[in-house]
């Protein structure tokens, strides 16, 4: 009886010590769920979800503070992927946060730009090049199309231009067939 108790207590102590050690040794830095959610988000950093960037939104979803349908650039596909990850039902995009738009890049009209640097400060990914009283320009390959630079411009010289379809980014279409009525 006593020996059995001792064995059980001893086992408990040993295993407890092992678990305690493992939890320190193999400690996971940060929240892996936030990383997983962040990986799905489109990284536009546009803030349309109501959070100052994709990662804060991911953190809010992980905490349960934000819903999964607040990201217009991610679109319905993004909502589906988030629903899959979190094991919840997908829901339609919340249009209060905006509607999905074709992918665009910001273009600065360099004749109008006065070199105020306001757009440079607004750009979340440092995709605008320029200096005070110097002409600014957008690095198109780095622009996420978040539109955050459009509002601060005092001379309205920034426009969002949809990316045109070219031979290099052309995609095969989903096969569709015309159904003919039988007379």
């Amino acid at each position, binding site marked *: 009886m006593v020996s059995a108790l001792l064995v059980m207590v001893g086992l408990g102590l040993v295993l407890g010590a092992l678990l305690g050690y493992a939890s320190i040794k193999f400690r996971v830095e940060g929240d892996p769920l936030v990383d997983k959610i962040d990986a799905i988000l*489109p990284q536009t950093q546009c803030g349309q979800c109501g959070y100052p960037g994709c990662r804060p939104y991911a953190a809010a979803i992980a905490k349960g503070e934000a819903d999964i349908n607040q990201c217009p650039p991610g679109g319905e596909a993004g909502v589906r992927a988030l629903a899959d990850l979190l094991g919840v039902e997908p829901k339609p995009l919340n249009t209060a946060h905006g509607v999905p738009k074709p992918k665009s890049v910001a273009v600065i009209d360099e004749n109008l730009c006065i070199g105020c640097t306001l757009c440079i400060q607004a750009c*979340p990914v440092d995709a605008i090049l320029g200096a005070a009283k110097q002409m600014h320009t957008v690095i198109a390959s780095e622009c996420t199309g978040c539109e955050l630079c459009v509002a601060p411009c005092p001379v309205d010289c920034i426009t969002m231009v949809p990316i045109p379809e070219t*031979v290099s980014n052309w995609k095969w279409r989903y096969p569709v067939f015309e159904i003919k009525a039988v007379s």
Partner: protein
Amino acid sequence: MIEKLFKFHGGVHPPEHKAESAATPIRPVPMPARLVLPLRQHIGNVAKVKVAVGDHVLKGQQLAAPEGMISAAVHAPTSGTVVAIDEQLIPHVSGLPDLCITLQADGEDRWIEREPLDYEDMEKTAVIEALRQAGVVGLGGATFPTHVKLRADPRHPVKTLILNGAECEPFITCDDRLMRERADEIIRGLQIMAYLLDAECCLVGIEDNKPEAAQAMRTACARSAVPVEVVLVPTLYPGGGAKQLIKVLTGWEVPSGKLPSEIGVQCFNVATAYAVHRFIDHGEPVISRIVTVTGKVARPGNFEVPLGMAIETLVQAAGGAAPDIDGFIMGGPMMGFKLPSPRVPVVKATNCIIAASPDLFPPQPLPMPCIRCARCADVCPANLQPQELYWFAKSQNFEKARDYHLFDCIECGCCSYVCPSHIPLVQYYRYAKSEIIALDRAKQAANLARERNQLRLARIEREKQERQARHAQKAMGAKTDTAADEAKKAIIAAAIERAKAQKAAVTPQNTDHLPPEAQAEIARIEARRSQAMEQQKE
């Protein structure tokens, strides 16, 4: 010596239709007045324009330089003037325009200085670079830059060099005619390639429906210094696919996602070997190619066509198309596509032009549901499960399609060919592939944006901390550094004093050299002023 041939999985026997165009020798075509040369004639980076509108160029002059390793140059097929560099329709399935150089021929057809390359006395890397500048790409239709495949890689030495003369697609006979008429030149190109790769064994694979070509190649091989073996392979579509031909000749299977060079084999089209020979031994870059013109044309056959010639002009050279045609197909009927316009130019990928008509290619009946007969799986030369891929592509389940090795599909069209429900399976695979590629690109862009955003946030945080540190330092400094400040102030004051003294010593006074009566007058005035000052004080 090849003793035994192997079999690849699947394959089909579509009607060959090769007799129409294979009978007549390769014909030259008159040089057109206007040539349109797309800058995207190869896989990889678009070539970079080197000429300006109005420039006069000579035949064989480089118009656009390769950009990066996987890229190829574009040359002028004749002498003339560059009249435009703009977007024009190109032979691409999308029907979208792309950047092209338009050349107005001057009729003189004057060459640049041509010099054969003494490649055996050169560094191999220099020869590879020369081939890159010569615009040599795979002329079987894939147009992958040849110099990339010819770089000897110490990790994967290429033991076996295979020349692909299988030409398995129906209708196409350009390689057949080339082998019959220019076998010696092809073997010469093969020798150069074997030298560059240090290959030990050279094979030429030819389908057994081309006995004349095989005979001509055998005769040429007998004359060649390097041992080359010509092997007749059974006629079975797609036996001319690189991986399929390697399997038939060597029995080796190229693993999924790997290149043939990784198992020590390299495979080139016969026309590519010919292009290598033309450049190395004659200094001629790729400015023309052999094109089969067949289908509903008056005199089908093979033509040596300058790149950039409009398809409709080429069809005129073949006697013109029948009135009932409904378009032109570039490539074969299995893998080719309908051209967006008959005015698009011939490019390096144009191996065949078929004038298509409804009676030649009857319209496909509407697709019916998949009945899971798995005939597609029986004929798939890549050993895939086409029916599974079809369901995944149709339901846009792209990750699953990728797991089922969608990217091993060579889009040969065997599955669509045998499908009893007439489902255009390859269209679904192409759709899924391009969606996956686009998704991967979006993912990469997102990763870049995330990284840049994190760097920016880190920078803002760092600047904030630096500013705070500076402010704190200043606040502390106001209290503690008074002694140092006093010393600094004293130094400044002393400096000001010194400057004043210096100024006084240097500046001349206008009272210095005056006659004595004026001096006396000044003294009197000064005395009066001091008296007045004293009175005022009192």
